[in-house]
């Protein structure tokens, strides 16, 4: 009896040591948990892709993708997102080295590419709506705006998250918590680029093919 008592006392005096290791374990599962979130997000996009696959040819005697889509603009948009992916990769490499200023620099570049992407997408949407091809025109356009708009919304929140993390890193440096957050955003950002591959292949290129 007394011995178990002593043992528990012993472990409580060692508590700070245990606390630290306890603190470290969730960091590993954070990545897995965030990955599971991304997979559930993947299902949202899968459903929107399926909707577009079903409704993508229902023009209601309205304009078709070949009339509407400006492929050079889509190509530039794709390039912007791909460039932002590689610059985020550079930010992660600088983070590994523990170089705070360089990490912030590459995160900033990533944010600028993200903003250009969003700007071009909003320009495209405004142009379509101005031409009378808004989301209410046909089932094809409804599903198009929902799918591409949902992706754009994700990018928007990614940029908000990016700016938040830049402030955090600027204030507190590359502490383990910020590294973990940057790694989560890294997965989120690359995941958005993966979804965009589906969007430009399935929606734009296949749409124009007819």
């Amino acid at each position, binding site marked *: 009896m007394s011995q178990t008592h002593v043992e528990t006392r012993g472990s409580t005096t060692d508590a700070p040591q245990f606390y630290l290791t306890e603190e470290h374990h969730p960091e590993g599962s954070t990545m897995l948990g965030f990955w599971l979130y991304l997979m559930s997000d993947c299902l949202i996009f899968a459903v929107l892709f399926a909707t577009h696959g079903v409704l993508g040819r229902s023009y209601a005697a309205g304009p078709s993708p070949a009339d509407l889509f400006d492929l050079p603009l889509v190509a530039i948009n794709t390039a912007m997102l791909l460039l932002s992916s*590689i610059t985020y990769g550079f930010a992660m490499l600088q983070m590994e080295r523990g170089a705070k200023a360089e990490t912030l620099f590459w995160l900033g570049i990533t944010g600028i590419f993200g903003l250009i992407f969003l700007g071009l997408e909003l320009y495209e949407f405004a142009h379509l709506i101005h031409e009378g091809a808004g989301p209410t025109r046909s089932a094809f356009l409804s599903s198009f705006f929902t799918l591409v708009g949902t992706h754009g919304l994700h990018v928007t929140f990614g940029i908000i998250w990016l700016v938040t993390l830049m402030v955090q890193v600027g204030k507190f440096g*590359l502490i383990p918590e910020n590294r973990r957050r940057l790694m989560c955003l890294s997965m989120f950002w690359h995941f958005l680029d993966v979804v965009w591959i589906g969007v430009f292949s399935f929606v734009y290129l296949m749409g124009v093919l007819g």
Partner: protein
Amino acid sequence: MTSNTQAPSHESASNTHHGHSHGHEAAHGSFKSYMIGFVLSVILTAIPFWLVMGGVFDSKLATAFMVMALGVVQIVVHMIYFLHMNPRSEGGWTLMALIFTLVLVGITLAGSLWVMHHLNANMMPMTPEMMKNMP
């Protein structure tokens, strides 16, 4: 000055973090692997745009097949070089979750298209004029 005194502590903190985490975290990329991924992505993006915009193939079906196939290849490239997927990360659970999701995505996409195509095929044929006069 302050940054100078802080730098070593950061360095050591990152080292201990590294030593701890290497066992169970996703693998980190290197400059080389990011560049390989980037170059492959550029090529795999340029080809489908060129196929569609240049009208390289006469057959629409062949072009569509190539666009989708190259898209799938590029997604795999992104998974490996940007998301650092490998069978060992998190004890294989990330790959397990991915496979499970892909199965669900496959069922969702194939099932929706199949069912809705059959519904469409079994509907009464309609001309655009009839469509316009619908209530």
